[in-house]
């Protein structure tokens, strides 16, 4: 499973915000330990953190404070790192001598080690409550002081204050996008996935969260709110049990101070503080694990991070009771939540809901009621843009539409329906349809349209429906390695929904591989935005859609091709867009980031050649480039030929960086070829409008209804 050795390359990732107090000390300690790479991710520091990090030679990434997420930001750091081992530290955790060697050793103790972690030692000025707790807590992992390999059934505790991961393990599991406790969730996920983790006492850091009493309480609120979200833990509270627990803990603290010869006066002072600390902890941890019952304003005030996030009321339990090693105060059995794939389980157990009886002539009625079940989304989602453009046009054609957001894990529960609808209208298309976020309100439709594999199963459970259709924008099993998800995604094509496919390639798969009935629609182009703008076209500019967070975009291949191009033609300007953060490349380029459609239209009108790669279905980008008169290069062998033809407006290349570079170079240097492709491209997209796409989709929806009308009675 792992090939890590005592010589494995180590990257260290440190998320930072206003961390100047310990950051210099931490980076000096890392210089002593000698990892191959140090990455600091700053999320809006207003102190000297950035200056300190740059002076220490760390790679500095900056993210907007609003973009920060404990899991999300650490995933970003891991993506940007190159080591076989990826260590994470918090900005106030200073590695002790031998830290890095201990981690390297940890990954050789078992062939399945996915992660390792070490103890947090108190700093000299740490309060006795925290010092005692840290020392006693970490001592429980290794009574004999030797490294311990932990397997399924052992404590799931894991903390990104001081942890290290095998790249293969992180790539397989990645941190969940949680507000808090992404590390605890990873610890549980890792053991379940068959990896092991190592507690190595030598991989120690100096670390203590010493705050004022109120700050401590607020941190506990955040921490237990996160535990509720990640592992489903709910902290119990009662008057008697709280008095009993607090008295016991204060007694421990007093004994601890006695053993360390604290002066009597100090002991008395800390005893009073200890009572406040433990009482407040009990109260705030109980409140944190019930955060969803508090109003958002109060949640924000009780939170150290000022966040009003609330875990869903059913939590996300992943562990058996008592597995959470971090909870010294009477852990409660975790509640078992409704699991992620409940709609699938329902369909597998009960079968699809029966369809309403067909009515003669229903396929030819002028107006239809169409309901679209969509996955949650964020601004800039290409697949959702297609859905909303189609809905807006179907509405203009007189049909009544409704939009149903299926969000079983409540990933976007904070967005209430009116806000979702306003977002659709602002960022995608001017739809009239209402938006519902709860299928409990379902009131029927002529055709229900599933729009992604996860939405097929809830769509199958809906009643009072005459036909079901499936808007297929990509071959989604390809998004996964061999897995349950890949199998269930493939299964959706066999469930009898009428396919409306985004390319002839997809239609062929739907019909021939999966045995379904399907029609094709052509993606539209917004010609008001994407056309040849009156700007001078450069003689040597290549524009590349480098969306590295989408694996099917083959960005590693694209970067290799551009590297080769740069080697051959160093004078060519390379511009990359589509990814918020710049990618490390062996050639210089201009980073545009995530640009607006208007900015992209200008860029495409100025550039010489476009590069947009897709290993699955083609996307809107090549069409938008063509509409601006920009010839582009894509990969052959998948869907592109089915749309553009083998010698159409798009230059198609084999999966080879040198050949890709050759195609780009040909377009840069062969004026006649460039002219031919450019003209062919403009001609190709001329008839590709969203109105036309909506007409095709409408035809397919009527076919879905007609199929029901003509189907043999027993199959209805």
């Amino acid at each position, binding site marked *: 499973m792992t090939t890590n050795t005592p010589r494995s390359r180590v990257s260290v990732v440190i998320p930072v915000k206003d961390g100047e107090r310990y950051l210099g000390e931490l980076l000096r300690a890392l210089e002593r330990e000698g990892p191959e790479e140090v990455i600091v991710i700053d999320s809006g520091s207003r102190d000297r953190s950035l200056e300190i990090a740059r002076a220490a030679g760390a790679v500095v990434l900056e993210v907007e404070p609003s973009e920060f997420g404990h899991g999300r930001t650490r995933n970003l750091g891991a993506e940007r790192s190159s080591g076989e081992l990826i260590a994470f530290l918090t900005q106030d955790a200073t590695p002790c001598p031998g830290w890095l060697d201990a981690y390297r050793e940890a990954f050789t103790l078992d062939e399945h080690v996915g992660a390792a972690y070490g103890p947090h030692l108190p700093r000299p000025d740490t309060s006795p409550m925290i010092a005692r707790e840290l020392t006693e807590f970490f001592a429980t992992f290794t009574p004999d002081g030797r490294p311990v390999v932990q397997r399924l059934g052992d404590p799931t505790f894991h903390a990104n204050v001081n942890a290290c991961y095998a790249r293969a393990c992180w790539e397989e599991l990645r941190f969940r996008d949680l507000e808090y406790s992404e590390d605890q969730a990873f610890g549980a996920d890792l053991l379940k996935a068959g990896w092991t983790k190592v507690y190595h006492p030598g991989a120690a850091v100096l670390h203590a969260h010493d705050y004022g009493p109120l700050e401590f309480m607020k941190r506990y609120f955040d921490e237990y709110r996160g535990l509720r979200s990640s592992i489903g833990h709910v902290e119990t509270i009662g008057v008697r049990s709280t008095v009993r627990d607090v008295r016991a803990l204060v007694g421990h603290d007093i004994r601890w101070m006695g053993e360390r010869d604290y002066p009597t006066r100090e002991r008395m002072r800390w005893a009073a503080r200890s009572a406040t600390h433990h009482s407040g902890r009990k109260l705030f941890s109980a409140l944190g694990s019930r955060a969803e019952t508090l109003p958002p304003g109060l949640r924000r005030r009780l939170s150290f991070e000022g966040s009003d996030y609330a875990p869903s009321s059913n939590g996300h339990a992943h562990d058996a009771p008592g597995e959470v090693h971090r909870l010294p105060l009477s852990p409660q059995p975790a509640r078992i939540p409704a699991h992620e794939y409940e709609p699938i389980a329902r369909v597998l157990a009960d079968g699809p809901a029966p369809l309403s009886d067909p*009515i003669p002539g229903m396929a030819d009625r002028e107006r239809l*009621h169409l309901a679209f079940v969509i996955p949650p989304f964020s601004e800039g989602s290409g697949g959702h843009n297609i859905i909303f453009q189609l809905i807006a046009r179907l509405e203009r054609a007189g049909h009544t539409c*409704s939009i149903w957001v299926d969000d079983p894990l409540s990933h976007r529960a904070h967005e209430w*329906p*009116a806000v979702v609808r306003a977002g659709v209208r602002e960022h995608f298309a001017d739809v*009239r*349809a209402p938006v519902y976020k709860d299928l409990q309100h379902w009131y029927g439709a002529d055709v229900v349209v599933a729009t992604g594999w996860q939405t097929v199963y809830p769509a199958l459970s809906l009643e009072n429906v005459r036909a079901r259709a499936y808007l297929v924008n990509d071959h989604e099993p390809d998004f996964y390695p061999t897995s349950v998800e890949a199998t269930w995604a493939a299964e959706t094509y066999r469930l009898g929904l009428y396919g409306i496919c985004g390319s002839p390639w997809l239609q062929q798969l739907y019909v021939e591989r999966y045995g379904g009935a399907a029609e094709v629609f052509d993606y539209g182009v917004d010609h008001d935005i994407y056309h040849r703008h009156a700007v001078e076209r450069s003689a040597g500019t290549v524009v590349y859609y480098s969306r590295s967070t989408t694996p099917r975009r083959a960005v590693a291949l694209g970067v290799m091709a551009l590297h080769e191009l740069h080697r051959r033609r160093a004078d060519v300007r390379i511009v990359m867009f589509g990814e918020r953060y710049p990618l490390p490349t062996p050639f210089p380029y201009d980073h545009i980031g995530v640009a607006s459609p208007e900015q992209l239209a200008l860029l495409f009108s100025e550039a010489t050649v476009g590069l947009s790669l897709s290993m699955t279905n083609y996307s809107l980008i090549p069409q938008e480039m063509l509409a601006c008169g920009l010839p582009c290069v894509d990969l052959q062998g998948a869907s592109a030929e089915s749309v553009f033809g083998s010698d159409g407006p798009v230059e198609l290349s084999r999966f080879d960086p040198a050949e890709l570079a050759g195609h780009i170079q040909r377009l840069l240097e062969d004026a006649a070829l460039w002219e031919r492709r450019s003209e062919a491209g403009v001609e190709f997209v001329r008839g590709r409008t969203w109105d036309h796409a909506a007409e095709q989709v409408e035809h397919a929806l009527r076919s879905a209804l007609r199929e029901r009308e003509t189907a043999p009675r027993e199959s209805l």
Partner: protein
Amino acid sequence: MSRATDPQGTEELLQQEVERLRARLAALEDELLEVQAQANDAVAEWQDRAYWLDRWHLDLNALMERPVAGRVRALLRAVRTPLRMMRIAIRAIRS
């Protein structure tokens, strides 16, 4: 009587009944669609109006059902009466 004696007439009558029912069904379907369209428009319009409530996660009904809200409403009512009387008195004095 004629049913028993005139099978062709019966068939015609049945056919007419089927046609009538089909027409009625189509009319009801159209009516249903119109109701759904109007309901959709109404919900969409209210979602437009409720934007800031949803944005701030304010469920006014739930908020107003809380005991504290009841006490605040009672307090406002109690304050409103003397204020109204005072306003009337001031107006009377000024006139």
